[in-house]
């Protein structure tokens, strides 16, 4: 290949080339090079044209043949261009040829205005690729910085949450220790005291402290539920008067103790019955009221309920905006503290709050309000008092249903008779329930496992079994199932903390006749015991009118038989019995669920359907139940519900056994 040919080949590969002879004189530049560097004229010396940055010249001398493997970085003396490349020796003493491309890094730095072309760079020249790589890596660094920033934020948030929890734990422990100490010391003193009056006082102290402890724990549970986002809104019908009354009931003791007037003020235009989350509203009002009482030393605390006419909130049809406010004549809150008071551990002197009732109570109320779209507002004037208020949209109920029945326990017998078994693996619960049951005059047998319960039930008869659900080994459901397989089985009532509707259906399906929510409430217990047990000696039994009607009215059945014919009668009777049994179990389930609306509905329907089949006694009882519910008389409902299953069976058995005796035969 001739030198010319080689030069031609090289020029095809590289955009910027020129020849250098032994005297370092430059010739034959490519057209691309000439266009960037017009000063490059044949005959000029390399060193005059370019500052040679690489290779490094020793004593300013350039001996090309020593640099055949060197990187060349040349910067035009007029700074028109910088080149990056190498020299190759041409054949037959024709000198050397520089081959290369613009030095991209230098150009971008010092001559960015020169428009280089992508094709100035040979494919195998990685300058462009590198440039892209670097630019992209810079982006990567930015991405990673953003990512670390976010991770750091997440870490800080987790740290904060952790710290909050630790703080909460510290405050809670402190708060629990005080009342617990009260319980322990009061009880230990009881043992040493012979004085009846003193003992009573000590027991009272123990009881109050224990209630205080329960309060703290309830706060903590609520708080953690809210924090975990597990609080859900409920919707129930409630009476506004009942709501405010219950708020007053809970706080009146404290108010009287401090000599503060507690006033409930429901304005006349507030609908009497509403639908909403009554429990959460009550909790908010109780928290705000007890907080107000805490910071008020004299004067009054007023809880007012009115229609909010100023709030601009979108309402659905049939809703009203109800404004609740709790104002006091207490010490007031300085302006600068107003934003902080909803923080869980805020206290007036900035130290961790030593009163959880306040610290968590306000925070919980705020969160509960948020769930209902209600923001709690505070206004306060130092030395004059504070007012907390919030507005909630609630559905108006024109006719209240009978979800909650008035319940006067005095109307029920205060002693009962019969033998009751109680099953619970928790020894303390077992002992306490046993004591309560004995106070009713009952004979009680307490056992602590499902197996013991089965064994005992098969050897002595019981009138009632109260069965804990969650027990190690055999649980209450299995134990109840096995007991129900025995010959004569008493009603079994579940003791459980799980009272969601689907759980209750499950208990019913497994042969339980009712449930009691743990911890057991006195009134609920009375209701359940009265349902299954007869009144005790020397006690007025439940005063219900006895039925004067026959179990079945043969005339009705005869008439029916004649009207539709015997064959049809038999078929219709089958349908009737099935339908009545189904409705009856609906009725019993509604009763167990405490769903008094459905109970009334089922009783009402049954009353008319059973009377058409001559079950006059059953119809009469159903009517009584329906009426008692409408009259909201719980003790009457209990009285008539008592033994309803037995009476119903009796009636249905008679219908089933009925044989038409034609007068002709």
């Amino acid at each position, binding site marked *: 290949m001739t030198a010319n040919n080689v030069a031609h080949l090289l020029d095809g590969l590289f955009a910027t080339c020129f020849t250098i002879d032994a005297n370092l004189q430059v010739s034959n530049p490519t057209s691309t090079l000439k266009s960037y560097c017009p000063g490059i004229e044949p005959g000029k010396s390399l060193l005059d044209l370019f500052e040679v940055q690489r290779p490094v010249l020793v004593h300013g001398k350039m001996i090309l043949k020593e640099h055949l493997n060197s990187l060349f970085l040349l910067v035009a003396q007029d700074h028109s261009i910088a080149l990056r490349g190498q020299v190759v020796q041409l054949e037959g003493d024709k000198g050397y040829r520089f081959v290369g491309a613009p030095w991209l890094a230098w150009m971008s730095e010092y001559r960015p205005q020169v428009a280089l072309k*992508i*094709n100035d760079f040979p494919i195998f020249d990685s300058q462009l690729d590198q*440039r*892209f790589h670097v*630019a*992209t890596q810079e*982006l990567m660094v930015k*991405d990673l910085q953003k*990512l670390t920033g976010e991770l750091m934020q997440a870490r800080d948030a987790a740290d904060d949450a952790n710290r909050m929890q630790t703080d909460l734990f510290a405050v809670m422990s402190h708060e629990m220790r005080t009342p617990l100490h009260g319980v322990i010391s009061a009880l230990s003193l009881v043992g040493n005291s012979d004085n009846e009056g003193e003992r009573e006082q000590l027991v009272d102290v123990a009881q109050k402290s224990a209630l205080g402890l329960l309060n703290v724990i309830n706060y903590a549970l609520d708080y953690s539920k809210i924090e975990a986002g597990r609080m859900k809104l409920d919707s129930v019908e409630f009476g506004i008067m009942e709501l405010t009354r219950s708020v007053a009931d809970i706080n009146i003791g404290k108010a009287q103790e401090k000599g503060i007037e507690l006033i409930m003020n429901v304005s006349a235009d507030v609908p009497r019955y509403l639908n909403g989350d009554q429990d959460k509203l009550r909790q908010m009002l109780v928290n705000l009221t007890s907080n107000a009482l805490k910071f008020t030393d004299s004067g009054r605390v007023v809880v007012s309920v009115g229609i909010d006419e100023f709030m601009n909130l979108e309402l659905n049809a049939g809703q009203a905006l109800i404004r609740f406010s709790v104002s006091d004549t207490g010490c007031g809150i300085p302006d600068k503290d107003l934003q902080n008071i909803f923080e869980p551990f805020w206290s007036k002197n900035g130290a961790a709050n030593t009163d959880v009732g306040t610290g968590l109570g306000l925070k919980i109320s705020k969160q509960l309000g948020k769930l209902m779209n209600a923001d709690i507002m505070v206004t306060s004037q130092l030395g004059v008092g504070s007012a907390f208020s919030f507005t909630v949209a609630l559905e108006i109920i024109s006719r209240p249903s009978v979800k909650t029945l008035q319940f006067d326990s005095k109307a029920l017998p205060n002693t009962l008779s019969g033998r009751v078994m109680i099953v619970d693996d928790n020894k303390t619960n077992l002992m306490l329930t046993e004591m309560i049951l004995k106070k009713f005059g009952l004979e009680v047998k307490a056992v602590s496992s499902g197996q013991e319960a089965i064994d005992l039930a098969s050897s002595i008869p019981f009138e009632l079994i109260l069965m804990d659900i969650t027990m190690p080994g055999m649980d209450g459901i299995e134990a109840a199932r096995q007991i129900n397989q025995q010959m004569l089985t008493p009603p079994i009532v579940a003791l459980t903390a799980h009272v969601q509707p689907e759980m209750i259906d499950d208990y019913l399906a497994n042969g339980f006749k009712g449930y009691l929510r743990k911890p057991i409430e006195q009134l609920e217990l009375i209701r359940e015991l009265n349902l299954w047990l007869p009144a005790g000696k020397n006690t007025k039994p439940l005063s219900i009118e006895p039925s004067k009607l026959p179990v079945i009215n043969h005339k009705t059945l005869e008439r029916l038989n004649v009207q539709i014919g015997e064959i049809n009668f038999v078929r219709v009777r089958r349908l009737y019995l099935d339908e009545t049994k189904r409705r009856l179990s609906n009725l019993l389930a509604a009763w167990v669920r405490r769903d008094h609306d459905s109970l009334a509905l089922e009783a009402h329907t049954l009353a008319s359907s059973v009377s058409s089949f001559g079950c006059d006694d059953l119809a009469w009882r159903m009517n009584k139940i329906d009426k008692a519910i409408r009259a909201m008389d719980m003790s009457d409902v209990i009285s008539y519900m008592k033994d309803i299953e037995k009476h119903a069976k009796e009636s249905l058995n008679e219908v089933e056994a009925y044989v038409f005796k034609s007068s002709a035969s």
Partner: protein
Amino acid sequence: MYGLIHNALRSMVVQEHGEPLWQLILESMEIEADVFLSMRQYDDSTTLSLIAASAQATNMEVDAFLGSFGYYWLTVFAPKDYGPLLNLTGDDPFEFLRNLNSLHERISTSFLEFRPPVFSVKYISDECIELQYNSTRKGLTSFVEGILRGLPIMFNVTMVVELMERSAVQQGEQSLFRIMKVGAQRGRS
């Protein structure tokens, strides 16, 4: 596609509609982290659903959205970080388009799993070319169209861009644009 593309998308949505909307888009796709690493290859389906979700969130048809994304890519995003590279690609729109393949080829040495589009340019006259776009992906013609509509801004010229054909091919999409320079040309802006 590379995280780079996602980040460009994010940049556009945030710039035009604010950060909350972008968060909403990520939420709707159940993507947790909002950081895409520019040099990481993400599944094409992620890219396409990001685009679809963004279109929906901004109340646009997917094609219209892709168009504006292409325009944003060329006129705002690429110049910021890849300005020098764009500048090298050509002095005028036609030269630029002729070098698009070279541009994407150079990128390939850094982006190892890169699947670049392939363009071919046919001169109809000095003032008019036909550009064929070939892709292994379906559905991105409007993105190209958006980029082409950004070219006149970049070069400060007047041009008419016309989509002549768009067809799905066995694996991907192929479309043909006609691009015409109009009036006196003024050179790069």
